[in-house]
């Protein structure tokens, strides 16, 4: 069945015509294609990860020996603040969202996300927020109050520079992008699944993105309120967090962590999703206990809102509150443990192929279990009293965020790279990189447990000699060099794969989910025929029906699209313009220039109307022989 491309003229109801360029800068600025936006997310998050790595490298160089003077205390504070903010908000979270952008529609057999222009808007706001934060290096000072930015350190009298404003406004604006993307994903997953794809047939990565999206929607409002309060304090002289006027600084911590703990799961649940795709694919078995894994994910997401005060055990909330939050935190260990056992159960009885992707998944399992165990330790308030705000905590969250989430996303990168590029990444370079990256990671972060127990607080640019901190810090710094080699090799492998990778074919891993049933890279319209789903692991069942059904012949896996065909929406420049208007707004607010703020608000209004009034545009794709002239471009049968 050939699919031919039929262009329909933009309806006359539109006031503005929509751009149609398919190559060049303009095509990227105006794209609404979830795959292109996914790639932009992934590319941008890698850029920011590079910046954060430089910051981390400087931090470790400074801490190589006690009394080092490479970085002044002020610059050191800026480095760890920007490292944390970048990794959490600009690197790992968008990496997960990037994969979601690319693969959620493909996994559920949809043509795109529900709101393509909103999706573009989400990306451009994220990019603008990141750009805004990084211009702080040139337009004042970068934030230096830690990624948690505890009040009253952020008040104007304690922090007169504009670094805190960059942090507050940057996160406030960036959060808008994250929120709309989450809503977009929810609508897509709930309402655009292929025929037959019931919720209990949805691939686990998509399921985890659904849970994550709900977490985003419920977690970001408290952060937004807190950010808004501080912006009001600093810009208009309100007194939310001014102790001299009776302000209660502890309020910031509550609001921040009601956001901040779910944020941990916003980062790590997509990683769980990726692992739940990679391990079954390379074990050639379905995910063990699929419903249990899904329910565990939902339960973790739900409980994520009931544990925030475990970040505040030392703030004097009292024994009753500490007990309550210790118990809820312990409870989260149960579904997490169940997930780990189910991944083990998936491997058991399989045919395990040790691809680079699978190696990262295994490294994830080991690292994450270790991070989980220190997590349980930290949930013990009396021990937390010792380890809170020390390098023990630093080690813990780098085990779960870096070792956990990031390694899982690297597994995902190796797994999905052939689908995204049509080419394979080199397994030899990949494995070499792995054997630098993962041992390097452990060499950096394992000694930090000991440094923390020996009394080294975090966020200090130096430490005292002679109390046992020299060796762990030196090892830790040595580890950065090892990991750096791994990261460089990873980068080389990505570039090598894009330029010279071997052709991948549609399904190089003999994998299980729908994205592997279309070509690599997928056509603009994702699927030539509407996938029809009769089972979990829809693609696998098509390939190996007897392994699931015995003798029974499964129903057809696809059907032609209906007479209207696939509507590919027109491109639009307004998401980009809207995001840029928000950027202008941010600078206006930052520099207290309310003319610029006014101008940006006017622009936002104008572009909102332009967005609404531009025509439908785009074109229809129809099965051969449909009405309208065919331009002869043949897609895959």
């Amino acid at each position, binding site marked *: 069945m050939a699919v031919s491309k039929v262009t329909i003229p933009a309806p006359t109801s539109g006031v503005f015509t929509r751009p149609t360029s398919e190559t060049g800068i303009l095509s990227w600025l105006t794209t609404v294609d979830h795959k292109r936006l996914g790639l932009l997310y992934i590319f941008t998050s890698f850029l920011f990860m590079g910046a954060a790595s430089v910051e981390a490298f400087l931090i470790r160089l400074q801490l190589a020996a006690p009394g080092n003077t490479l970085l002044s205390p002020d610059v050191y504070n800026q480095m760890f603040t920007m490292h944390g903010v970048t990794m959490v908000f600009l690197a790992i979270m968008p990496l997960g969202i990037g994969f979601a952008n690319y693969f959620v529609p493909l996994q559920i057999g949809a043509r795109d996300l529900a709101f393509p222009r909103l999706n573009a808007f989400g990306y451009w706001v994220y990019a603008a927020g990141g750009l805004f934060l990084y211009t702080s290096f040139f337009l004042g000072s970068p934030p230096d109050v830690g990624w948690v930015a505890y009040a009253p350190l952020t008040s104007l009298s*304690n922090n007169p520079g504009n670094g805190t404003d960059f942090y507050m406004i940057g996160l406030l604006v960036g959060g808008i992008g994250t929120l709309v993307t989450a809503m977009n994903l929810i609508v897509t997953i709930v309402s655009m699944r292929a025929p037959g794809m019931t919720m209990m047939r949805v691939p686990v990565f998509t399921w985890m993105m659904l849970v994550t999206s709900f977490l985003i929607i419920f977690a970001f409002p408290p952060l937004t309120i807190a950010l808004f309060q501080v912006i009001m304090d600093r810009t208009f002289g309100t007194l939310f967090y001014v102790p001299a006027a009776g302000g209660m600084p502890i309020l910031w911590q509550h609001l921040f962590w009601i956001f901040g703990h779910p944020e941990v799961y916003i980062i790590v649940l997509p990683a769980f999703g990726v692992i739940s795709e990679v391990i079954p694919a390379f074990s050639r078995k379905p995910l063990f206990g699929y419903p249990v894994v899904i329910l565990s994910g939902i339960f973790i997401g739900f409980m994520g809102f009931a544990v925030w005060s475990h970040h505040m055990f030392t703030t004097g909330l009292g024994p009753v509150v*500490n007990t309550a939050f210790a118990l809820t935190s312990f409870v989260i260990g149960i579904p997490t443990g169940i997930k780990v056992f189910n991944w*083990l159960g998936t491997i058991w009885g399989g045919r*395990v192929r040790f691809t680079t992707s699978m190696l990262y998944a295994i490294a994830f399992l080991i690292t994450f279990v270790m991070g989980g165990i220190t997590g349980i330790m930290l949930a013990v308030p009396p021990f937390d009293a010792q380890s809170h705000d020390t390098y023990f905590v630093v080690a813990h969250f780098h085990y779960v965020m870096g070792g956990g989430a990031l390694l899982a996303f690297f597994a995902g990168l190796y797994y999905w790279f052939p689908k995204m590029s049509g080419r394979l990444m080199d397994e030899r370079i990949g494995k070499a990189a792995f054997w630098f990256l993962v041992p390097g990671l452990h060499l950096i972060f394992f000694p930090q447990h000991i440094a923390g127990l020996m009394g080294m607080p975090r966020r200090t640019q130096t430490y005292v000699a002679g109390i046992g901190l020299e060796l762990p810090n030196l090892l830790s710094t040595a580890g950065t060099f090892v990991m750096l080699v791994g990261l460089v090799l990873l980068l080389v492998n990505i570039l090598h794969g894009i330029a010279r990778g071997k052709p991948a074919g549609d399904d190089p891993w003999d994998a299980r989910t729908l994205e592997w049933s279309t070509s690599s890279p997928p056509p603009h319209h994702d699927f030539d025929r509407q996938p029809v789903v009769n089972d979990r692991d829809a693609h696998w069942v098509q390939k190996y029906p007897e392994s699931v059904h015995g003798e029974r012949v499964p129903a057809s896996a696809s059907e032609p699209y209906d007479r209207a065909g696939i509507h590919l929406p027109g491109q639009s420049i307004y998401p980009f313009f809207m995001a840029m208007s928000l950027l202008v707004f941010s600078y206006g607010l930052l520099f207290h220039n309310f003319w610029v703020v006014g101008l940006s608000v006017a622009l936002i209004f104008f572009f909102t109307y332009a967005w609404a009034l531009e025509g439908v545009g785009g074109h229809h794709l129809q099965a051969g022989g449909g009405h309208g002239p065919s331009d002869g471009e043949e897609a895959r049968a």
Partner: protein
Amino acid sequence: MQARRWLQRGLALAASVPLIAACEFSGPQSALDPAGPVAQAQKDLFLWTFWLSLPVMIGVFGALIYALWRFRAKDAKGAAEVPHQTHGNLRLELAWTIIPVILVVLVAVPTVRTIFATEQRVTPGPDDVVVHATGYQWWFKFEYTGLGFTTANELIIPVGQRVVMSLDSADVLHSFWVPNLAGKRDMIPNQDNQIWFVADRPGTYFGQCAELCLGAHAYMRFRVIAMERPDYDGWVAAFQGAADARPAAVDPLVERGKALAAQKGCVGCHVIEGFHPTVRVGNPDFPDLTNFGLRTTVGAAIADNTPENLAAWLRDPQSMKPGNTMPTLWTAADPNREDEIEAIAAYLLSLGRDPATTAQAIVGGAHGGQ
């Protein structure tokens, strides 16, 4: 014979594990080297969770490695095989739900017990040492409320007696943390926090601010010195007499230093009890220098309180503790700089010292532990 030797080696190795755990991690700022019941309880809980999680880790990793080895695809043919497509097993799921539940209960019970044993708010009794601590950017003020005097960056306590501290902050968040004695408790403006602990043995314990407060945060250190009761009483007595105007100093250098302390503005900020017979000098929001000669450190536990370090501190406070708010009182070109520094240092070090003894002798007993 051979087997027995290996057995001996194995036993020696096994015995060394707890030894390593006990010795290698000791230190004056180590949470694993408790010198009192609170820190001990916190360490015990850590070790309990550690030993509990060790078999879990070994079990999970062992099973993982075994499964990966046993179920590896041995060749291209194996990699193309389709194994039995198991979807799950209810009994297994139940089993590995129950295992974490049991583990969590095993952790939770002693946790809750220890929380209530160590974190309950207490009402100070007559035998308790009561101290009001205030965090400032970047030093600690300790007010002995019952005894009526104040120190900075050095908390002297008697061994075996409960110390009950109320915690406050004058500016941003700080955190009071002496790992050998007790886990941290934050110092928060407008919030009345409390921490209590006991030192079981004499010694000098390092404390450090554990909540980012910018500037000289990394240098915001202090010491807790636990003394036997008689030593402590002597130290208290030295303070309680300090408010009385001191007799004229006999040393002309010290006399000149005292005059310079006024002239250069030291006592514009720093309280020195007994500086003047009738006028109380200084501002309580700056480090109290009363009996400074008894202090073991200078610059908030940055350096030992020796004449050389004190002179270095006075000469250029920023190089010793970058970011602190102590002004540099002399330009490098000032011809009188070294003379004046020497005099002021001599004066400061004389404070609280009985001419017959030295500061080191008074607090010397406390150093025995370390």
